[in-house]
């Protein structure tokens, strides 16, 4: 078996007394696309900074290509680069911004060609942009210049923190296309944090859900946080906006976050009866995405203001004739919910 690109074991990171990250085990394979999802404060950006060798974890080990990252950060940073959510451009021209990393590495032969090539990859015409100053760019253009200054390095690993969050649709499309090029041309491994689920599930080989600094699941997990109350019939109940209730078992009274795998949700066209499942919730289909890693379809169903994700086969989607806007019933057992905290 080949050595994974990254292997993290028992990695912990604290900010003051707050534990921002506590991963038991995470492997990232070469040439793959890993998606990271999770709510704000779930540790996604911290994990990216650790993978970028910008932060040293307070505990655990980080192996990069089988070698411990400890005191090799500078060496590894030559192969790994991170694109921040809000890009920072040096107070120089676009050309100097894109060329900066190459100059640091002393890779000056063919510098002009590589800079031009990187700009073209992100959809910026070199003749228009090379001489522009950093303040003469729109937000989307600045993000693309920042991406070009990473792509020009032909990195082994490209880490991206919400690369399309603060840009317009046109820029987002060009960024996505550029990332596809990088993968195709140089086999770059991508680790992407994004709330653009449709794109993420389409391109990612694997998606990791983080919650409270821990891995909640490998894949799009459903999370129900807060407002769990003990039920008179035993277990716990979670009240949805429209009055429907989600029921969970094994409640000790202290837990407040439950997760539910998309594999455990069944969808029905009609209101079911005579079934043993305790959760039968009415909702409507809001979105359907193809999941690259599993080859299945992720169906998002809005139930009482809460979006549930169910993983279905393409055949099932066809048989049920699912489409956005269609009313459905989401079914799952109370025991299928796992308590995270």
């Amino acid at each position, binding site marked *: 078996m080949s050595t994974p690109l990254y292997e993290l074991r028992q990695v912990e990171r604290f900010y003051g007394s707050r534990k921002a990250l506590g991963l038991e085990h995470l492997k990232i394979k070469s040439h793959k696309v890993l998606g990271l999802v999770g709510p704000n404060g779930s540790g996604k950006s911290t994990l990216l900074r650790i993978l970028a060798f*910008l932060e040293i974890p307070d505990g655990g080990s980080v192996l990069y290509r089988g070698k411990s990252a400890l005191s090799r950060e500078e060496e590894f940073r030559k192969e790994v680069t991170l694109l*921040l959510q809000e890009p920072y451009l040096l*107070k120089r021209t676009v050309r100097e911004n894109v060329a900066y990393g190459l100059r640091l*590495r002393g890779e000056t032969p063919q510098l002009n060609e590589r800079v031009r090539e990187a700009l073209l990859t992100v959809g910026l015409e070199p003749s228009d942009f090379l001489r522009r100053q950093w303040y003469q760019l729109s937000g989307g253009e600045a993000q693309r210049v920042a991406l070009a200054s990473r792509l020009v390095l032909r990195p082994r690993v490209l880490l991206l923190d919400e690369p399309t969050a603060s840009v317009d649709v046109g820029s987002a499309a060009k960024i996505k296309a550029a990332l596809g090029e990088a993968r195709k041309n140089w086999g770059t491994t991508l680790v992407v944090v994004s709330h653009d689920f449709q794109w993420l599930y389409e391109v990612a080989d694997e998606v990791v859900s983080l919650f409270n600094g821990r891995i909640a699941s490998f894949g799009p997990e459903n999370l129900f946080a807060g407002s769990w109350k003990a039920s008179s019939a035993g277990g716990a109940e979670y009240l949805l906006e429209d009055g429907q209730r989600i029921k969970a078992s094994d409640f000790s009274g202290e837990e407040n976050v439950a997760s539910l795998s998309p594999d455990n949700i069944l969808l029905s066209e009609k209101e079911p009866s005579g079934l043993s499942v305790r959760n039968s919730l009415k909702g409507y289909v809001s979105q359907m995405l193809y999941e690259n890693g599993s080859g299945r379809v992720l169906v998002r169903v809005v139930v009482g203001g809460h979006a549930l994700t169910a993983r279905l086969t393409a055949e099932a989607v066809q048989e049920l004739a699912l489409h956005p806007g269609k009313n459905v019933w989401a079914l799952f057992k109370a025991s299928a919910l796992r308590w995270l905290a």
Partner: protein
Amino acid sequence: MDYIIQGFFQALGFLFEGNEELWSAVGTTLKVSSLSILASLLLGVPLGFLLGYADFPGRKICRTLVDTLLALPTVVVGLLVYAFISRRGPLGELGLLFTLPGIALGQTLLALPIVIALTASAVEALDQRLSMTLLTLGAKKGQLARASLVESRYAVLMAGITAYGRIISEVGISMMIGGNIKWHTRTITTAIALETGKGQFAEGIALGLVLLAIAFFVNGSLSLLRRRVQV
């Protein structure tokens, strides 16, 4: 009121006719202030960068000290430098009293806290994303420090211009250390003080106009740079 208006027109005459005594004071001011600003930038920028960038024991005390020295009165600097470079002083042998290098020494001491404090503030105010960006592009420690200084270049230039404004407008040091010697150490500000004392308003106003023109140029550059820094 009339004598002021009259003085103003006479002053314009002096300026355009090329009054030698007057232009000598202007030349002396430019010479000595250039020397002072050069010395204070050469010393102040590295020290300010160190103060804003590096973490060392006693950094906070140094910062407080530098900030306190921002309000240093020119006559106190004049007094201290005079004491050091007068014949009886420890640097008396250098013969700096009543010379331009002597004035420049005093003005450098006056400008140094300004350059150090503003450079340190500029470096401290650098966007946190800068160091992260530089590191992700592969910068090593030395390259990170160099690039941080380059990134704060406009703010550092602003520090230099602010310090220059203080240097050309001071009178205490030039008067005490230079002695206001005609054709030799007489600067614009000491000449204005002298001419006003003699009741020669026209000469005073003429020199004042030159000083204002320099100040206008300096402040103009400052506001242009400030805009650039804020982008």
